[in-house]
């Protein structure tokens, strides 16, 4: 038996998972998927910023377009901190592709036009 707090959304459901990975306490199917993943291969969405050459901004916010294996978060941060991009950039533009062989891309989360 293991107790978890669901981090999928801000609701924060209290989940209970038994030894056979049966999940209870979730208010939606995503809670069940989260609990199973958390106990087998935990992942996290990573958000950060990259340097940008722009008239308006010095940083462009970015995120992983899919959850990243938790143990790779610091390696991903290292990649992100070595990137410099130039405006214009649009939400969803791929900044780094298929990082660390995970099939996860780093994408922009802000429109910076000039």
């Amino acid at each position, binding site marked *: 038996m293991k107790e*978890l*707090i*669901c*981090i*999928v*959304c*801000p*609701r*924060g459901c*209290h989940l209970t998972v038994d030894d056979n990975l049966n999940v209870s306490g979730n208010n939606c199917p995503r809670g069940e998927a989260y609990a199973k993943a958390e106990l087998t291969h935990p992942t*996290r*969405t*990573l*958000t*950060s*910023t990259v*340097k940008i050459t722009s008239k308006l*901004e*010095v*940083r462009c*916010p970015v*995120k992983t377009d899919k959850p990243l294996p*938790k143990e790779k*978060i*610091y390696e991903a*941060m290292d990649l992100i*901190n070595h990137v410099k991009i130039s405006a214009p950039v649009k*939400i969803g533009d791929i900044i780094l592709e298929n990082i660390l062989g995970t099939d996860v891309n780093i994408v922009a*989360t*802000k*429109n910076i036009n000039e």
Partner: protein
Amino acid sequence: MEQFDLVIIGGGSAGMSAAIESYNLGIKDILILEKNNYLGGILNQCIHNGFGLQEFKEELTGPEFMSRFSKKVNELGIKYELNTNVLGISKDKVVSYSNKDGYKEVKAKAIILTTGCYERNAGAISLGGDRPSGVYTAGQAQLYLNNYGKLVGKKVFILGSGDIGLIMARRMSLEGAKVLGVAELMPYSAGLNRNIVQCLQDFNIPLYLSHTVKEVIGPKGHLEKIVLAQVDERFNFIPGTEQEFECDTLLLSVGLVPNVDLLSKLGIHFAKSRGPVVNQYMETELEGLFASGNVLHVHDLVDYVVSEAREAAQGVYLFLNNKLPNTNEKSLVKPLKGVGYVVPNYIQKIDNDDKLIFKFRVAKPYKNINLVIKEGDKVIKKIFKLAIIPSEMEIVKIDKKLFELNGEDITVEVEEK
């Protein structure tokens, strides 16, 4: 003097949402006044994800969430002025402001105040000890890091377990800072549960409940260390529990307060939420002046801010069409046992089918209780809650027909079993 049907003060998520909804209701003569050089307000620095699950059924970052609204504002051609400092609102709804074009006054038929909230700082909590550099509010450090790329320190202690503090614990850890701990005065966290997990537990950051910073030490002008101590149930320090932490940064995440400065000269009353007293359409005691979002009461989710701003826009629509009478026929809404505050503060008797929406917070965590909404002695609604905490706002929608609205008080209370 230039005139507008609606002037919206503040172009953050509440202001933009109110503007779009008003426009869709046929109020097209709108002016938004925004102090920054961009729309979107505080969401611009909230680069983490978790926004928009209710509004868009997907999880967005702050900049992504707000860009959907700013895009719409631009598409609709709603007029806005940036870099604009609003100086005052008069009782006859003249809004005065200054920007690069100088000082200006405009006359508004209706106003929605969406100025958000500000962070409590070291002075506000009577933080003990020196006043060195290195002490920041969490939001200030967030702005420096996320928008300017400046990490304010390398060894960090965080006072207060509000969500921004927790988010910054993770963010600064990711950028290479060592976060030594988070202290919370109360015996429970002020932040969302999921942030305790993904911001503290993921990074092995200890949470010290019933603890606070007793002394800030930085005699040479920069922070050198803090003294942490445990408190008893009356928040007095327990002698002998002091611990020192050497650090160069102390972040304060000790609460948000509605930014109501512009209302101070209007003679209107304020509620327990510290926002203005309002009716069910978020109209203040000054006819035609509405408030919504964090200036009214501090919300935990921006999705709730957006929907509340739409309710205020509905109110503006009724007001401008003379369907929101300023009568004395009102029923007061009062928080009773176990409830911190309730929005709205009174219900006006208006003949329409709109539902009544009550938003409130409990004053402390409870388990296995009923939330009871009454009119006079009559129970209108009873809701069972397995667990309820102050950091999670309750929203209850009730059919207006269930109420008499004959002037008897409407009350919200916790009923323990």
